[in-house]
């Protein structure tokens, strides 16, 4: 059922995550290929966020491997920080750095981690800000921005590291309804430009329109997946049918 599009970027093998009594992930094996836009849906508590956060090891798996660009990053000897630089992450609550200006938010990691000069990093940041139409906010602080603007800046901050893949953890869930559109529009643009994306979201419209593959998770497992047309048009799993009937 997996649709191949280029090389394997992330490979997950037998992933388990246990929080005390809770078995959040029970044995997930999956591959993310270059250029794919994978949308993960599922009821709350299904483990979809935990799965996403396991990909860059923000959540350390209890068992199993995550292989990124051919290297097992769950291996303790691997410098996870190097790999995380290539895996951008966007959070539900933006998590911009409130004590830094927008420009500093974007340039902090490139300057400190990629050792770019301040000038280069700022030039690149301004390019990205122009791309999202927020260049006049460069010297503003996060608290002066609307939710939608904050999230677009958060995306830009990740993009400034030139990541191989972008992970989105419910990027529009904390937004007022009128601001969802601007964030989704930017994500669509990224997808069109060929960015590999893994997106946990409740925006079924986005999944239908942009996803190359939709994954349904429930009870810590992948229950069904497929191209959007097949996934939404002809679901097979009973839980998925129930889920879609509630949400659509």
């Amino acid at each position: 059922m997996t649709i191949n599009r280029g090389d394997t970027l992330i490979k997950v093998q037998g992933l388990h995550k246990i929080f005390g009594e809770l078995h959040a992930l029970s044995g997930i094996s999956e591959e993310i290929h270059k250029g794919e836009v994978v949308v993960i849906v599922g009821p709350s508590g299904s483990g979809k966020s935990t799965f996403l956060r396991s990909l860059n090891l923000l959540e350390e798996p209890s068992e199993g491997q995550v292989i990124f660009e051919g290297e097992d990053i769950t291996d303790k000897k691997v410098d996870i920080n190097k790999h995380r630089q290539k895996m951008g992450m966007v959070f539900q609550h933006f998590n911009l750095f409130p004590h830094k200006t927008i420009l500093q938010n974007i340039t902090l990691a490139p300057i400190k981690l990629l050792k770019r000069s301040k000038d280069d990093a700022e030039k690149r940041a301004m390019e990205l800000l122009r791309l999202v139409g927020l260049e006049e906010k460069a010297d503003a602080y996060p608290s002066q921005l609307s939710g939608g603007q904050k999230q677009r800046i958060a995306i830009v901050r990740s993009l400034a590291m030139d990541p191989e893949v972008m992970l989105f953890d419910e990027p529009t869930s904390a937004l007022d309804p009128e601001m969802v559109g601007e964030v989704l529009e930017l994500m669509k643009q990224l997808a069109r430009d060929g960015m590999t994306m893994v997106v946990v979201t409740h925006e079924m419209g986005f999944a239908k329109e942009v996803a190359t593959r939709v994954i349904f998770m429930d009870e810590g497992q992948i229950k069904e997946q497929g191209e959007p047309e097949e996934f939404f048009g002809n679901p097979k799993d009973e839980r998925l049918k129930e889920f879609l009937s509630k949400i659509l």
Partner: protein
Amino acid sequence: MFQELQDKFVNNFITDDRWKYIADGLVTTLQVTFFAVIIGIVLGFFVAVVRSTYDKTGKLRLLNALCKLYLTVIRGTPVVVQLLIIYFVIFGSARDISKVAVAVMAFGFNSGAYVAEIFRSGIMSVDSGQFEAGRSLGFNYVQTMRYIIMPQAFKNVLPALCNEFIVLLKETSVSGYIALQDLTKGGDIIRSRTYDALMPLLAVAVIYLLMVIVFTKLVNILERRLRSSDH
């Protein structure tokens, strides 16, 4: 009435250059406070980092246990007792040790415990999403702390930290227990010479008050500067 006040003033401060007790005492108080604050910050910062690293990652178990012991002992005993123990027990056989050094050690060591808990509460008050955002960009634990968590934590705890230093400044007034002539002791010596309690003690109180007011003003300015990011 006015003549009487003037006589008292002259008797308390001018005769025999008694004002020097106050002036020298003030210098001693400032010295002790200044160096104790530095020790307190360094020690408190270190303890807070150890404690919150343990809370966040489970590492540094042994150091964390030591820090907890330090906090319990220091916060569970009076500072005067600590001062006396350091002077008469720890340095009991070293009679030539400088009393200022002992006071700096005692108050710095004491303040470190309170500063540690202030810093720790500051670190804990920064939203965990900030930490995750830092790590997800590829910063390691130390870099995330340095560039992202600490600047925010420091801003959050500045009022509490300022309060701790005011407390410390006033707390040094018990230095007289080891016969160190600080500001309070200076005033008290004048009282014992002139048998007039009002003037010297009032002078001492006013000097403490002025120092606290000036210090509070300075901190307010700093706070306003740091607050420029939350419009």
